[in-house]
């Protein structure tokens, strides 16, 4: 039996906390959650990879095509004007969701592109583009870019490549054997040569929160720019870019109930307007001659070509849906589910919960190693019970290497998961070692 932890009872704004009854109502908004998988009801615990979508998000995208579809920021006909309004309203909604100004939010295809945008813009600055204003983004030999050992490949490889192109050096803050960031070493690694500090808000593998305040303070003290990968925090926690005081922040739409194909980059207004563009072409220019072009201010400067209009509109619907339920309530509920998973897993022989011990801030994610059974087999067994989890290296090979495993099994919750989902997961996990003959 799984020890039952008390559910959170109140939240900051005194709206009643989420409970199973309300989550069951929320689930009705998600058509896919009523599916059966392999003869069992779907237990979807892979929201860390991608979230499911509520009806209102699906309808927002369809509604856009039924009512407003036209090219935005070009054409003077009424439909084009309306489409532009809807598109820019969506930007304002999503910007507000993270407390950014609308002109500080650049649409991208996904968070990976958002992070590449920053890296390539710095690269272009390093090649001399952007004039005097872009001086602070220029990197060269002797400069250092610092990341951490727990990064998703999307917040590692763009910086490796930027270092290769500019001659700068890439350094990283390591993790301890249990995957906690070695904050005791951070001050020795982030120093006067550091120009960029890029790190994850929440580890996509372990679900653990990094100390953004301490890392930002460290970066500020040496004049380095900060880039926060917020893919795993924006969907699950209240995130305020001003309170975090970061220079750039990237997140993806599909992990926060929105569609695929859209993500966003927040950047401080004065920085975005000083940065040379990444992708170039239509819609991002003022004057073009056969020799050269002048660019629009941000965010349009970074939005070359036809934009992801219906996706932006649907993402705004997702942000509104989340806000209506309340991000603080969602965070509290997922923390409850995470604690229930951790407590239940601790009771199971041969199951190791990866990551730092209890007490470290975590979203509702549990990543495990099953003694004697490869994660791929664990995932297959769980799938036969309708339980969908992620197996593999989760695009974080260096972190897995540091943890001493080649792959792992990750269960990640969201606002639509019930305690029954957690219990179904625990029950399925408890059968894995017996099935594969790994039990002593």
């Amino acid at each position: 039996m799984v020890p039952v932890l008390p559910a959170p009872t109140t939240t900051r704004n005194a709206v009643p906390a989420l409970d199973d009854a309300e989550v069951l109502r929320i689930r009705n908004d998600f058509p896919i959650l009523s599916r059966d998988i392999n003869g069992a009801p779907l237990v979807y615990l892979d929201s860390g990879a991608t979230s499911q979508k509520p009806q209102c998000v699906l309808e927002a995208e369809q509604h856009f095509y039924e009512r407003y579809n036209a090219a935005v920021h070009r054409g003077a006909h009424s439909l084009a004007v309306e489409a532009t309004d809807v598109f820019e309203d969506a930007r304002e909604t999503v910007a507000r969701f993270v407390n950014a100004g609308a002109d500080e939010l650049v649409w991208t295809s996904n968070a990976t592109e958002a992070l590449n945008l920053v890296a390539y813009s710095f690269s272009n600055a390093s090649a001399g583009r952007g004039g005097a204003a872009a001086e602070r983004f220029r990197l060269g030999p002797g400069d250092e870019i610092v990341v951490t050992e727990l990064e998703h490949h999307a917040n590692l490889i763009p910086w490796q490549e930027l270092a290769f192109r500019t001659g700068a050096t890439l350094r990283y803050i390591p993790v301890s054997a249990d995957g906690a960031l070695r904050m005791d070493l951070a001050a020795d690694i982030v120093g006067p040569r550091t120009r960029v500090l890029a790190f994850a808000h929440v580890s996509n593998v372990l679900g653990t929160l990094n100390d953004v305040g301490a890392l930002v303070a460290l970066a500020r003290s040496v004049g380095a720019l900060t880039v926060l990968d917020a893919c795993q925090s924006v969907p699950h926690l209240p995130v305020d870019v001003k309170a975090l005081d970061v220079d750039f922040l990237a997140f993806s739409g599909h992990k926060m109930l929105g569609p695929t194909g859209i993500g966003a980059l927040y950047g401080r207004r004065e920085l975005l307007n000083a940065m040379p563009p990444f992708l170039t072409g239509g819609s991002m220019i003022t004057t073009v001659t056969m020799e050269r072009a002048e660019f629009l201010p941000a965010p349009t400067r970074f939005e070359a070509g036809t934009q992801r209009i219906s996706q932006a509109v649907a993402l705004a619907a997702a942000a509104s849906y989340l806000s209506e339920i309340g991000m603080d309530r969602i965070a509290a509920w997922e923390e409850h589910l995470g604690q229930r998973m951790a407590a239940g897993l601790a009771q199971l022989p041969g199951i190791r919960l990866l990551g730092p011990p209890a007490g470290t801030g975590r979203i509702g994610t549990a990543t495990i190693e099953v003694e004697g059974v490869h994660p791929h087999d664990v995932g297959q067994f769980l799938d036969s019970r309708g339980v969908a989890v992620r197996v593999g290296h989760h695009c974080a090979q260096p972190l897995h290497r540091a943890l001493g495993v080649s792959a792992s099994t990750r269960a990640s919750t969201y606002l639509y998961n019930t305690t029954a989902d957690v219990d179904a997961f625990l029950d399925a996990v408890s059968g894995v070692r017996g099935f594969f003959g790994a039990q002593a």
Partner: protein
Amino acid sequence: MSGLEQLYQQIILDHARRRVGAGLKEAEAGHAWGESHQHNPICGDEIRLRVETDGNTIARISWEGNGCSISMASASALVELAQGEDRGTFTDMLEEFRETMRSRGTREGDEELLGDAAAFSGVSRFPARVKCAMLAWVAAEGALLAAAPGDAA
């Protein structure tokens, strides 16, 4: 049989534990040999497999690897099956195994030709796992190609 039991037949689970041929061996004097390293970046399955030939005969196969039970069991069944066979027979086995894996559940592997490896037929119903089952076979194909006669140490 449930889908899971079709996939993980007892023969497969047994091979996953027995791991016939596990432990990379130095080639024997007089044997030609070749080696292949295969890696599935999606799940991290990895195998380094060495084939030693004596004339036209596959004299010995040894390997080291890390991966799911399907990939490890497949390597084990392959060693048991292919050791002692000639190149031509191995090619027939490989083709039969590959065709079966690609069949999306529409073809049972020929048990006469494939022995225990025929038990992997159920894997073809799980497209995400076909690569796991093929890993050792692809390595063996590459290693055999590299083991040209005359390479004898």
